[in-house]
């Protein structure tokens, strides 16, 4: 029989190793491009979304980049517009919801970000309105939102499950052999 304490130390080591394994990544992704370098009044804007696909009733991230339209050339460095007011308006025919996008929420401080939860799946029309020092711009795009039932990431759970089983087996084996020796 395996000692109870030894087994739990094994399990604890396994969980710690797994946590380290997962947190060693913590990557920053750019998101799915929705509109890229689209002229919007006095500005040129780009929008990306995370995750892919956007799922209802769970947090999604809308990332906006605003550049000055004057002299814009997409192959060359653009001048970002900083400190603008950005409003995202979501409509699906039945509901209208508004969220601001700000530098404060953004990881890259040259961008604007909004973290939000959309209440239901289906196609939503997103209206982006930018205002800055008397200038204004507006752009629209559609985003397909999946219902929350489909958000289970079986690939992730399957992968983690396999690692847990494999490492757990090794831990078990090590203690089983030790007991045999005793």
């Amino acid at each position, binding site marked *: 029989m395996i000692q109870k304490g030894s087994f739990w130390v094994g399990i604890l080591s396994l969980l710690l190793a797994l946590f380290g394994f*997962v947190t060693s990544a913590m990557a*920053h992704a*750019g998101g799915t491009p929705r509109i890229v370098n689209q002229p919007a009044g006095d500005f040129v804007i780009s929008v990306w979304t995370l995750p892919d696909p956007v799922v209802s009733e769970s947090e999604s991230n809308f990332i906006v980049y605003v550049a000055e339209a004057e002299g814009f050339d997409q192959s*060359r460095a653009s001048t970002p517009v900083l400190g603008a007011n950005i409003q995202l308006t979501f409509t699906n025919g039945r509901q209208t919801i508004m969220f601001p996008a700000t530098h404060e929420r953004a990881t890259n401080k040259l961008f604007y970000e909004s973290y939000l939860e959309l209440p239901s799946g289906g196609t939503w029309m997103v209206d982006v309105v930018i205002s800055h020092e008397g200038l204004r711009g507006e752009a629209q795009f559609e985003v397909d939102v999946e219902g929350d039932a489909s958000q289970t990431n079986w690939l992730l759970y399957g992968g983690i499950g396999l690692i847990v089983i494999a490492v757990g087996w090794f831990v078990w084996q090590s*203690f089983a052999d030790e007991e045999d020796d005793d």
Partner: protein
Amino acid sequence: MDPVLRGLLLSWELRPVFILFLLTLAILYTIGWTRLRRKSVNSTLANRWRLTAYWVAFAIVIIALMSPIDILGAELFYFHMIQHLLLTMIAAPLVMLANPMPFIMWGLPRKPRKRFGRMIAWMISGKESLGRKILRQATKPGVCWFIMLALLWIWHEPPMYNLALRNEFWHDIEHIAFFWSAILYWWHAIGAAPHIHPKMARIFRVGYLFGGIPVTFILGVKIAFATGILYTYYETRPRLPVIGLSVADDQILGGIIMWVPGSMMYFAAALVLVARWMQEQQNLPPVPDPEWLDRGEAAK
């Protein structure tokens, strides 16, 4: 200060849970290091440079994963290459140089330490079983080298790389693959604990390190000299001022970073091994005169 530069320098993504996890390991390491240093007579295991290597690796992981280097990796290929080099070519070998297993184990309280020790002892010299056999075969030096090569090359295929840039989940998987395959590779190259396999002779370790050069060299050259844009995702990102390049120039620079500094790290590590070996040879006692050296004594 230029507002754009200021914005870039302020772009940090601090993750308290991750910092806490790393800090816990670093504290365990430091406690274990102190205990082993007190125990050992000449402190060969608990060297000061091992402790320094661990804390420097800790700082590099934080910088690579939370500083503007991480944020800009989503905008520019060359920043992404710098991030990967920091993780796989600097942090991973430093972690292995610090030989974390014994120190973290000795950082644990007595009871869990003993149990953890028994588990490690099983890995090293336990009864021959299927589990041990699989573990030994799956972590042979050649297998670890191949895992590193395969993962690096597969993840730099444009569809895979573009997917990782777009999707956080796949980006996480990519970083896990790079960091842990590098840890496995450097584990053999440096000869850190646990010693599941017999430690490679120094000459083989030098060869093993030279074997790492083509892994990044070929891939770096392929990217730097590619005729078109490989990673089209970057075409959807804005060209930022101050640090921005055109997508094509960015790709060339990223390829060169992987090719030159990427390969140089293996070369430098091999040179260090050779230099240490030569130094050890110098410190050996003088060899007595060979018997074949005829000094005319026989004739006397």
